[in-house]
């Protein structure tokens, strides 16, 4: 097993419910009597004993997932106490959610941002409330020219769907969409590269021991939010264009 970096935030000790010896708060099993421990109030990162870093070794994450799956499996606790049965069910389901989230780069980033207090919808809503109170226009979170392009492309997509319904295929529109698709796939690939750079920045800030209020930590966080915001439009577009292009006339 890849050595796991202990997360200092979860290292304060508790006692094992069975043997009453002192154990690590985040431990799934007692280090002394090996008994299963109740679910700790943990996030997906600390469930795997990881720090909140974004570069994750997927190979060792997978290995740890399989190891824990076997050890936490409810079948193992079929004859254990009722509370142990319950814990194993709870932990198994948490394990699946945590693994599914952490292994996907975008889901992992979104999850981390959520842990870092980012609430996109709430922020958007309060920005609207503020705009109303001040009689001002709300600042859009994505650049206007991207919105413009997304809107135009959606119009073209709609046109293409309409002509398809009539049994026609507009070659010019199809060509335009094909070109747009290539362009947006490049944008998407570019945003993935940019995101990885931000992961690097983030991990460095965390490695430097920055706490939640650290301005640098917040700055990197907000850069990731902006990037994911732009990305969600482009991702939807690529999906819709693909749908429109692959469906046969």
């Amino acid at each position: 097993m890849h050595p796991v970096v202990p997360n200092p935030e979860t290292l304060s000790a508790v006692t094992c419910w069975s043997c009453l010896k002192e154990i690590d708060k985040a431990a799934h099993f007692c280090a002394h009597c090996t008994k299963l421990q109740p679910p700790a109030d943990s996030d997906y990162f600390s469930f795997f004993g990881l720090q909140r870093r974004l570069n994750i070794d997927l190979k060792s994450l997978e290995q740890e997932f399989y190891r824990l799956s076997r050890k936490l499996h409810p079948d193992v606790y079929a004859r254990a106490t009722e509370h142990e049965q319950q814990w194993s069910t709870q932990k198994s389901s948490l394990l699946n959610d945590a693994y599914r989230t952490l292994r996907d780069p975008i889901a992992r980033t979104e999850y981390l941002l959520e842990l870092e207090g980012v609430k996109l919808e709430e922020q958007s809503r309060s920005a609207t409330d503020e705009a109303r109170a001040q009689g001002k226009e709300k600042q859009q979170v994505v650049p206007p020219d991207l919105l413009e392009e997304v809107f135009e492309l959606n119009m073209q997509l709609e046109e293409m769907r309409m002509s398809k319904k009539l049994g026609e295929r507009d070659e010019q529109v199809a060509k335009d969409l094909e070109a747009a698709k290539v362009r947006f796939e490049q944008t998407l690939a570019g945003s993935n590269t940019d995101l990885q750079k931000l992961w690097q920045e983030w991990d460095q800030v965390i490695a430097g021991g920055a706490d939640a209020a650290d301005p640098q930590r917040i700055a990197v966080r907000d850069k990731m939010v902006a990037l994911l915001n732009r990305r969600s439009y482009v991702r939807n577009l690529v999906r819709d264009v693909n749908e429109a292009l692959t469906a046969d006339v």
Partner: protein
Amino acid sequence: MAYSNKVIDHYNNPRNVGTLDKGSNDVGTGLVGAPECGDVMRLQIRVNPDTQVIEEAKFKTFGCGSAIASSSLATEWVKGKTVNEALTIKNTDIVKELSLPPVKIHCSVLAEDAIRAAIGDWKKKHAGSEAAAEPVQAKA
């Protein structure tokens, strides 16, 4: 989650879908987006320069049923109102009218943003010409 009847009605029979001349001095255009879901909404208004009443409103939305219904409703509501009256429309009014569930509240926020953006665009055009014609009429 099931859509309310009002949402379904607006979705099946959207009011005021279309385009107004973006270049016209009396037209304000708002183009807004919700990054949570990737929806985009364009709302346009045509304002009577003398009365400041919104005489026409058009929208085009690419998004879910609730986003379409919210913008459709928004065009209905702004029509006949003065610009300042239209600015008092709140997203929560739209939520109430359409019985939007919590996960769709951002659609109503988007519609309010669109109204505000359209009026803002119109004011920008208008303020310029008005300031040139009657620089004294600067009311807060």
